[in-house]
């Protein structure tokens, strides 16, 4: 086995549960999904120096997010202290988009709550984890719309501005969240909202053709081509194929980034992820348009390696993320 036993148990369990939920006709057993999902409430009492609370960003879509902040005192902040202005000079604000192939997980999923708490400590940042609308109930572009709404919300909070009166925003996401990061950054380009950087962990991209890595790794490390196809069909508009730009941003229907001011990016690719050819194509695409991008390729990593701190890849990535944000 390539992964530690507890990681294997965690991801196999998730994979098993997810298989129970996807129906061949494209529908999804949402009730069972919500029941099986391990969730945690927000906690205004600091745990390891981090406290969290939920906010509603948009009433019309019921867009919820969980905010994670560093506690500056031992005790529990009172209600009006939750949104206290940032105390240090520059505090990065990470807008986090959880993974789940557009269909699974939420901001209050235990695995993502844990990850976001870690990010606060590692990056000395405020983390805002967006509970975007999921497929198949909500197709493209709902998730992007929610991401965009979150970006606007964060940018307009007085209490999230650093001493220079600006919000220092980074977009971070894994799997489908990574895909959302790219697309929200694209939308921001045409606005006056500045995104300082994108971090994409095992981002979810694809395309019509079957790439070498997909064929080689199909079914080998938790993921199958079949399930990837299912999730794309669940997310993309009806009748569209995987060369839709949401799935394949630098494919035949891709958008040119020529002359566009795009944030610097960090793309993390796991060598045992069957989608790596698409992720590497994304990296190459950004480079081709002259955008600043770093690639971190972890040869022996599988999907989800960043969920548990029991492997070297985890620490490598966390260091890389910290340097990217604090440079």
């Amino acid at each position, binding site marked *: 086995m390539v992964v530690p*036993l*507890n990681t294997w148990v965690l991801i196999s369990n998730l994979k098993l549960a997810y298989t129970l939920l996807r129906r061949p006709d494209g529908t999804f057993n949402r009730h069972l999904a919500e029941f099986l999902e391990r969730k945690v409430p927000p906690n205004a009492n600091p745990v390891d120096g981090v406290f969290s609370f939920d906010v509603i960003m948009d009433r019309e879509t019921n867009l919820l997010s969980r905010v994670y902040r560093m506690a500056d005192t031992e005790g529990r902040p009172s209600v009006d202290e939750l949104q206290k202005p940032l105390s240090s000079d520059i505090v990065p604000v990470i807008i986090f988009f959880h993974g789940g192939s557009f269909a699974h997980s939420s901001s209050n999923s235990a*695995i993502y709550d844990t990850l976001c708490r870690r990010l606060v400590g590692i990056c000395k940042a405020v983390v805002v984890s967006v509970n975007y609308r999921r497929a198949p109930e909500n197709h493209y572009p709902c998730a992007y719309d929610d991401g965009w709404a979150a970006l606007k919300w964060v940018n307009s909070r007085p209490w999230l501005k650093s001493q220079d009166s600006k919000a220092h925003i980074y977009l971070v996401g894994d799997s489908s969240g990574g895909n959302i990061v790219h697309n929200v950054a694209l939308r921001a380009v045409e606005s006056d909202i500045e995104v300082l950087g994108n971090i994409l962990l095992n981002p979810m991209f694809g395309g019509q053709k079957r790439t070498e890595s997909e064929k080689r790794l199909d079914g080998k490390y938790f993921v199958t081509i079949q399930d990837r196809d299912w999730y794309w069909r669940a997310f993309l508009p009806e009748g569209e194929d995987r060369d839709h730009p949401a799935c394949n941003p630098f494919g035949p229907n891709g958008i040119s980034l020529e002359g566009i001011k795009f944030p610097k990016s960090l793309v993390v690719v796991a060598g045992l992820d069957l989608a790596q050819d698409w992720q590497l194509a994304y990296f190459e695409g950004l480079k081709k348009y002259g955008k600043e991008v770093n690639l971190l390729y972890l040869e022996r990593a599988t999907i989800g390696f960043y969920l548990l701190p029991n492997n070297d890849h985890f620490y490598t990535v966390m260091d890389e993320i910290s340097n990217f944000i604090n440079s």
Partner: protein
Amino acid sequence: MGPYDSSTSGSGISSSSSSSSCAGKSPDQMDCLLAGGGYRVRSSELRRVGQHLERLEKVMVNAPSQISHLGNDVVHHNPSDLGTWVDSLLSDLNPPEYSDLRYNDFGPILDPSAVTSAWTEYLTPEQQRIIPQHLTVMTAMEEDSSIRLVHVLMTCAECVQGGEFSLACSLIDEMQDLLTRVNVGCGIGKVACYFIDALSRRLFTPQGVALVGSTNENEILYHHFYEASPYLKFAHFTANQAILEAFDGHDCVHVIDFNLMHGLQWPALIQALALRPGGPPVLRLTGIGPPSLDGRDSLRETGVRLAELARSVNVQFAFRGIVASRLEDVKPLMLQVARKKLWL
């Protein structure tokens, strides 16, 4: 457990170490990394759970039709208890798949003693059906206690309201006892817990101690409560419906709110009037409220907010605030009720 927990073993290449969970903990303890993901699995059980997952995976690959059965017709027990959840799925598969387990070799990584323990821990499908499982099904005792809890809670609240404090105190004691017999993680038990806590604070906080936080904090809390709970909103909704009906056909209307507070009832009314067929009436709102404790003119602030809203939806609006510590201090003259207007 901080972000870099140095007690975890670093390298994750080989699987031979089953203590890739936090080092130094006994195998009987829960794997703390999985616990962070919401799953309770003993370190000693990890391998067994892994094998069962592998077994289930094989079924998924070889007999995918079984999956829809597992997704639809199976009762799922506490998913946090991963071992039991996986076992119950396995036991729900067709018997041939299940009995396979007793005879197959579990693979090279397993030692014989582990096989034995796995075998003895297994219940046959028949046995599993007879033994009551640790479900979220309520026992009869729990149900009785829950019902009693509700009754005692209501009685206690009435006592507190009526000033019968010693009776209320003994009821609190009774409720604390009842709480031990119900599930306080969800349902009636959880709700009762919060109410009992609140009533206790009412009863046991010494007089003169400020029970409440700053005005600002209270305002925020009130807003959150208004947003979260349907009761206040619904009460306002029904009241506004009655007002709308009464205002039907009138061009000039006046509402007197005897306890304005944050004026949360009125935005919805203003918006409804804006959308009225035939156009909105001219709306006058008189808001009565106590003097502010912190020097802010909160009545005026509320009025300004409502005026802004009215302006944004093109409803002609005028606001008047009347500060009074007691309702008796408000004289009809102050309300300036005009003859031609309809006032409510």
